[in-house]
């Protein structure tokens, strides 16, 4: 091709987190490379590494091997004005909105209910429209250190109109091509099966975008079902999904995905799942949060008093499928 310009055919008008890969590199440059222990409580990790106004992304979700305990701690600490990366997340965004923590979200998939609907119509909560895969592609761009990526979807939808996507003349084929802006969240919260104290982390089973979320985010908080020795990491480096230098905090949080499932460790609490869905659809999330979050100063207290050891044991017993979810 000898033409010297490319046409920008169309652009979405949705706000998006500003794209500045060199600024992100500066933030990464300030993180330690030392193999020091980053183990701390959920309370300390959220207090230190989640600031009001941050863009927060989590991997998986409140019901499925997500950092449910860390999400509850964010609400317990009454963080405000968070921008949520709402890819494939059933109820978490609705909870954060109900708790007053979140005033906007990039949409992939989440459920709302009357509470979120009021927040939208009253202008307390704004949604920018993408899809699950397009949001994971945006995180992938952030994890590659580039400013954007082309995608073969999103074009022609109203998501495109209310997003940060652009339709440009392809530099190589001349055909219309959709591109989406890189996403470098302020903080990623990720639940993993195993991590060492430095943050080298293992995740078993299918997933959404754990690795990309970790590499794309300025701050990374891991909650881990199990803390393992760095010796174990070194004996099978192929199992390490997230490298320690990307990690700022390691929270030892057994049942950190409760009420969701952590595959190979425990099943989901189906009664609790039904309760949160019912609460969401019947405008009862306030009571839900009081019962499951605000009434307790910590996850340990909630699990011990509200769920109870017998119930936790039962959830572990119900995790009958183990193969592939252990080293």
């Amino acid at each position, binding site marked *: 091709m000898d033409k010297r310009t490319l046409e920008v055919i169309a652009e979405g008008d949705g706000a998006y987190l500003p794209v500045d890969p060199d600024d992100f590199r500066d933030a990464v440059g300030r993180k330690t490379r030392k193999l020091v222990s980053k183990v701390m409580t959920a309370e300390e990790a959220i207090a230190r590494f989640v600031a009001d106004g941050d863009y927060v992304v989590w991997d998986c979700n409140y019901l*499925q091997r997500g950092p449910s305990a860390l999400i509850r701690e964010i609400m317990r600490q009454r963080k405000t004005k968070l921008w949520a990366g709402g890819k494939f997340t059933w109820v978490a965004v609705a909870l954060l909105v109900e708790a007053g923590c979140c005033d906007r979200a990039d949409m992939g998939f989440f459920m*709302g209910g009357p509470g979120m609907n009021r927040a939208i119509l009253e202008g307390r909560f704004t*949604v920018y429209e993408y*899809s699950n895969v*397009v949001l*994971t592609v945006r995180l992938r761009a952030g994890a590659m250190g580039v400013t954007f990526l082309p995608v073969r*979807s999103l*074009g022609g*939808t109203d998501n495109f109109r209310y997003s940060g996507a652009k339709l440009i003349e392809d530099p190589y084929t001349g055909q219309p091509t959709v591109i989406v802006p890189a996403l470098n969240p302020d903080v990623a919260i990720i639940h993993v099966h195993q991590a060492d104290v430095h943050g080298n982390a293992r995740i078993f089973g299918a997933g959404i975008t754990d690795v990309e979320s970790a590499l794309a985010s300025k701050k990374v908080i891991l909650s881990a079902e199990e803390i393992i020795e760095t010796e174990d990491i070194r004996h099978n480096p192929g199992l390490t999904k997230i490298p320690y230098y990307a990690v700022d905090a390691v929270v030892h949080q057994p049942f950190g995905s409760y009420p969701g499932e952590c595959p190979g460790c425990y099943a989901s609490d189906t009664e609790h799942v039904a309760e949160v869905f019912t609460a969401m659809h019947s405008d009862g999330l306030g009571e839900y949060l009081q019962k499951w979050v605000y009434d307790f100063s910590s996850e340990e207290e909630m699990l011990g008093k509200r769920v109870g050891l017998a119930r936790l044991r039962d959830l572990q017993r119900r*995790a009958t499928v183990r193969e592939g979810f252990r080293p």
Partner: protein
Amino acid sequence: MMPTTRMMRSGPWKEAPVATSFADREFQVCVTARLVEDDRTYWVAAGGGPMYTVLLAKRLYAPNAVYVTEDGIVAAEPILPLDPVMTVVAAKPSYRALQWTTMNGIGDHCAVGYLDYGILNTLQIDPYGNINSTWVGTYPTVGRRVNGPGGADSIAAMCPRTILMTDHQRRKFVPRVDFISSPGYLDGSAGARQRVGLPRDTGPWAVVTSWAVFDFDEATRHMRLRAIAPFVSLEQVLDEMSFRPLLPEHLEILDPPTEEELAIFRSTMDSAGQFSDASSHWVVQEDDRWVMVAK
């Protein structure tokens, strides 16, 4: 002849004992399962009708159909029934897969063309197969927020053939969707999808409701009625749509569910009745005629 017609006309179910009492949504799953091609790959929306459909088809009609889900699970042999909503990133639906990858991973598989069919649910659908699962009303100021596209936008954009499932209700078949969450043929014009960057030779292939089956006219890309259930009339079908589909030269009458289809579906998929409870109608056979009663 469209594959849909061949598939509707002949199959093992022709010889099987016919069910005499079922929800119209159960009928929808059975009919969709009969459209599943063997030895093809499917990206199914995790949970609900789409996943039930491919699981039922694999049991009865297309044992070598392969399906993936948006969490990157390839060709699983899941432990059924699944816990409510625990259809992705969970142990039972992941069981005995050939590969566990990620959402970006499976998005790549679809982008390069390894996933032949998609199966989706729709909240609203228009004559060109555009889907709304985002907002009911006037976006974003009047009405109600729904879930968003989830993985459906990628499936509808990148799979060569997409099967859309929806209840047969007037509010679902609208002349214009309130919000295009996932792309059909857009305005129906030739090349409309490629003009916005979507891959060539992709788009909606069939629409299966609780009462009827549609495809899309090759020339106009407008939705076309192809077949109806034995328990409804053409008038009933058209009356429950807010736009008029094209009509075929020959209207097929769909076969009712078989006892076997329903037994498998009810015991291993809809065991809690969560799916059929949402049906609008119940169908029973009373001396050789079908009677449909609103629930």
